[in-house]
């Protein structure tokens, strides 16, 4: 049976995977040549798609062993799908609101309680 400690580790790792995947996705799409963010790049559909793909692939790859840490592996799939959906929504607004994006994603992970 899964204990709280394992669930906590799951959440901590999911936060970490989310941040690193998002960083990778955004870095390769909205940073300019001086490494400064430029959200205007999000007006370009190709860049938005690239960001989504990089995020999705990285998050999936890095978190693929995390489902062992929770009692219901299907719930892990749900978390991944929801995180992708949250980013998708924000990107399609073409003006990413980082504070809101981080809050929504962190809330989702913190509520992950498949016991």
């Amino acid at each position, binding site marked *: 049976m899964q204990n709280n400690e394992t669930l906590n580790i799951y959440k*901590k790792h999911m936060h*970490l995977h989310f*941040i690193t995947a*998002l960083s990778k996705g*955004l*870095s390769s799409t909205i940073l300019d040549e001086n490494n400064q963010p430029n959200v205007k790049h999000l007006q370009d559909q190709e860049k938005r798609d690239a960001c989504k793909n990089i995020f999705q692939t990285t998050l999936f790859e890095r978190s693929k*062993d995390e489902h062992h840490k929770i009692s219901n592996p299907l719930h892990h799939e749900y978390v991944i799908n929801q995180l992708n959906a949250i980013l998708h929504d924000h990107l399609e607004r073409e003006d990413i*609101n*980082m504070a809101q994006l*981080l809050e929504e994603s962190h809330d989702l992970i913190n509520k992950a309680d498949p016991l």
Partner: protein
Amino acid sequence: MSEKIETEYKPTVLEKAKNSINYHKERVNNHLIHNLNAYAKAAEKHLKNEKGDFDVKLLDSAEIAKQFVQAKIDYHQEALSKRIGFNIDLNHDDPEHALYSRRLLEEHIGFDPEKYTELVIQQGSNWTADAHTNQHQRILQDKFRENVDMYVNKLTEDNQSLEEVLQKTNLAGRNEKGELGFAPDLANYNIQKILTNDRAKRTIFSNYLQGAGREAILESLNKYKLPEQKE
């Protein structure tokens, strides 16, 4: 010379306030992106075990926590140097340069670097990506809020700016008589109460400066709505 002055564009007080708020809004967003990258880079470097997998428990080691924070600070230092075109160097031979660098860096990351290291050592593996971004978000949002409040205070006394907001948000009609003229959107509201109530004016300015649309402003003015007329 006088002709030149006449054609020069001078932004109104409200436009200046809006530009400043937009600038700060963008800064908050950009900073959160930088912060995210700094965390991710530091994690790639210091939070991976021998198998190459992330392991947050590594942060329970004071030595790793120290290296982790240093990697973050290095990232911020480089990004800030590029943005402002000044070489941020805390160990510069010129003490004034070093001191100035420290001030700029502290302002940028929101922490004193040493205190920051202490905090992460203390929190260990509880210093999660979530805790990390929340902390920074709070600092930045507080500063943003202060900025909005400052302008709202400034604008509350200024009926000219109020009129401008009402027209820009299509809440009011065209002002032809030099008085505030109101279009149907505000017809169901107690206009006198709004005009003489600082709290109501603050609501309008605050919403507008933060980018809220007409509907949101009307919603927040609900308490000034007139009772429905019975036919």
